[in-house]
């Protein structure tokens, strides 16, 4: 088991390494370099030379990669072009904002998804299921820019209950941010909950139809005890990975929602830095998003390993 975990860990590191290489090479083979694409028409003479000097573009590519990677490992992503500030300073507040948005969505969405999924499965084909499932399918099929826009239209413009778009500086404090995130969170949670609830529902139904549940019923196990002891642990195990992917998706920036609400998170930063041709930031974002995916999946694997008795052997239990 230890070996397995170690293997996954090493695989994760290798993935990150490959991602970093790909982003680096990608940026490298773009026509022109960071300076020409940033300075555009002013890319000549002194300005260009100064820029090249500052970014160290005069050394060969592999040396640049090594020193870049070395700095990244130390937590230093170098300088952004547009703001002329340290990338860390650019990223910090954005990560925090994305985290706030994601956590809020997770705290609301995941328990809700579990509860709804279980209810729909246990009352399969009855009224609660029919109603909840219809709503879920509805919110799954409407694209998020439409549901987000509708939310703004109804809640912010017609009812004027909440601010429609977020117009705050990037580095606001947590409490100032709070009222601003309500609408984005609702928009995200709707889709996420719907997806996950459907997943949980089919997983629970599948377990309910299994031989061991029929056996538990025939053994005389009372209904709710059966649900909690025999059904849920087995039905929710496969859900862990889906939850992990959802969390990674949330943290990586929900681009569309952030853009619609003008929310200063990672997702919008991706768009901004691409349109500004701020290649160092794009590079940094690539590696950060990849790390988020890799580490969350790693945690999910760990959890599954720990919870699934099939993957445990007698020795490791003792």
């Amino acid at each position, binding site marked *: 088991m230890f070996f397995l975990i170690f293997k996954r860990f090493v695989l994760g590191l290798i993935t990150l390494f490959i991602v970093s290489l790909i982003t680096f090479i990608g940026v490298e083979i773009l026509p022109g370099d960071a300076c020409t694409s940033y300075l555009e028409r002013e890319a000549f003479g002194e300005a260009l030379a100064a820029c090249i000097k500052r970014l160290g573009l005069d050394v060969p590519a592999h040396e640049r990669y090594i020193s870049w990677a070395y700095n990244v490992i130390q937590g230093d992503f170098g300088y952004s072009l547009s703001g002329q500030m340290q990338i860390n300073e650019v990223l910090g507040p954005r990560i925090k904002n994305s985290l706030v948005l994601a956590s809020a969505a997770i705290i609301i969405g995941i328990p809700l998804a579990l509860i709804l999924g279980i209810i729909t499965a246990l009352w399969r084909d009855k009224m609660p299921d029919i109603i909840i499932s219809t709503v879920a399918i509805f919110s799954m099929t409407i694209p998020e820019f439409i549901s987000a826009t509708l939310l703004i239209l109804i809640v912010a413009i017609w009812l004027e209950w909440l601010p429609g778009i977020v117009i705050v500086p990037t580095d606001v404090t947590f409490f100032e941010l709070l009222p601003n995130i309500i609408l984005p969170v609702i928009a995200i949670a709707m889709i996420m909950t719907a997806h996950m609830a459907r997943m949980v529902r089919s997983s629970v139904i599948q377990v309910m139809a299994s031989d061991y549940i029929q056996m538990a019923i025939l053994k*005389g196990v009372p209904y709710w005890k059966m649900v909690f002891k025999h059904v849920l642990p087995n039905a929710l195990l496969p859900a862990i990975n889906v939850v992990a992917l959802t969390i990674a998706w949330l943290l990586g920036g929900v681009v569309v929602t952030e853009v619609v609400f003008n929310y200063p998170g990672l997702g919008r930063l991706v768009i901004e830095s691409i349109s500004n041709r701020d290649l160092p930031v794009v590079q940094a974002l690539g590696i950060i998003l990849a790390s988020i995916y890799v580490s969350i999946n790693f945690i999910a694997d760990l959890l599954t390993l720990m919870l699934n008795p099939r993957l445990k052997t007698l020795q490791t239990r003792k």
Partner: protein
Amino acid sequence: MNTNIQEIKDLCIGFKSQKGEQISILRNITTNIRKGETVGIVGESGSGKSTLALAMMGYIKHGLFTTGGECLFKSKDLLSLNNKELEDIRGRKIAMIPQNAGQALTPNLKIGYQIEEALKLHTDFNKVEREKKISELLNQVRLPSPSIMALRYPHELSGGQQQRVAVAMALAGNPELLLLDEPTTGLDVTTQAHVLELLKDIAKETGTSMVYVSHDLGAIAQVCDRVIVMYAGEIVLEGPVRKILKEPIHPYTYGLLKSIPKLSLSGLPDSMPGSQPQPGNIGSGCSFYDRCNFSSDECKVKVPELEYLSDIDTSVRCFNHSELISKTSEQKITNDLKNKITIDEILDLKDVSISYAKQGIIDQFLNKVTDTNPTVKDINININKGETIALVGESGSGKSTILKSIAGLLKTKDGYIKFDKEKLLSGDLKKRNSEDLRSIQLIFQNPDESLNPNHTVEQILSQPLKLYFGLTGSKLKTSIAELLEKVRLGAFYMSRYPRQLSGGEKQRIAVARAFAARPDIILCDEVTSALDVSVQAAVLDLLQKLKEELGTTYVFVSHDLAVVKAISDRVAVLYQGRLCEIGPSKDVYQFPSHPYTEVLIGAVLEPDPDIRPKLVAEDIVEEKPPEIGCSFQGRCPRIIGDKCRNETPPWQIGDNGNAIRCHINIEELKIQQS
């Protein structure tokens, strides 16, 4: 005093079809289960056995509902009780042992917990007493070291052990009635024999009434006092086990018994034409009319009633049962094999070893073989043209592995496979030329998985014809029609999809597909295991007729020793991927010399209550073959100490042309066994 523990009166269960019609799957079931008695329910797949057994616990599956009748347990109608009242009865008064214990134990809960749960629900024991009782129960079902077992998860037990745990769990509540749904199906022969023995002992010790549901008349013969035979949702025959199995007076039971291959008879069993009607498709007369050899005009229009014959304590649903009484004493099978075996060797397996162990990247790079204990080792078999050779052994003995490597789906680690005396067969499918591929065809166990559900029969059969012979147009059509005729199906089947075929028909299509390539060798991997006995007999018959006509060579893999006896000329017995014995089937079956062959053949259940299996070895399951010594040392009842543990046994040739691998002299073995 009422001696019946359960009384079922006129029970009907059905479902609503998509068109809204009501379709019944159990019709007018009336029967009683007496106290202390073991009753067997037999019937083909889909005859409603499980539905009936579940109804006996007041459980109706999602989608089904009762349309009439009652199911009285001690005069209380289970079908009218609410969930709360049922929870009180289930497990405590009536317990169930499921078909597949591996799937019927909750995977995330330890064995001990699951038994304790039953105890908590059904007894007033305190914690200490419960723990004591768990040990007792595990002991009662003969599981080794109960305290360790209790801490295990279901997946950490073998199939036989899981089944024992299920029995222990059912016994926890001290039930008065025990329902068993195919409790030994899917277990190895030896394991099956042991579990049945255990059930019999428990019935004797505790006096519990049992209802034993199975399609396997061999198992029924061993444990039951009385037998109920079901066909298409009805009871067609019911009576004492000896009467039913030895003098069946219903045409269906008569035919069924004749279609079972038996160790005591040679040659192929008689087959029964047709197949059981689907629910909703039952005509106005007797449900067996289409397949019956004894039918009269009356049968077509009138439904026979279940008639009780008091002189033989038997109920039968047939107008013409009296005609059978005289017939049942005949017992002869003359369908002996007429294989034309030539002296030409067609396939030669020399020192073949096969390993599933995955090589590490580095070893692969260095081309280094690391597995010193491969799954299959030292296989030497040569097969002559026209012969049927069978590979037998329990699950995990490497039968399918060997077939796969002949087919080119698995690489051999050592040794070689030669085809037609000189051609070396590559272990890599991609390296085989089209001629090699054509000559060797494979038929799989489960036609559902091997036939593409989106292709019509015509498309399925045209693939090999196009690929190997480049047939097109009308030539292709006639070839397909010929193939269908060969497997006794009409040309109108061409436009059908696999889902529109019955199990037996699907397997016929699979056979036709294999023959389409006009192969020299056909590899049959458990081809009849998924079929009902009556259908199995027909498929075996078909395979035999085809080979007699075309001279094809078969390599036939099956876990069913009686089937193997019926169809094979020679048999190779495997244990843990190592050969134990190889020789002419007649002799191997009559005088099994190797200790493992003896154990295996001894455990076969015959559909005759007077023939008991001989249990000579424990049914422990070994994960891996031993590194050195005899492969069978772990279970051998005749083991002679260190020699068996340390030295690979030599081949010995017996005087019947059989060869065995054992340290004990073959003559000596003969004396010991008699």
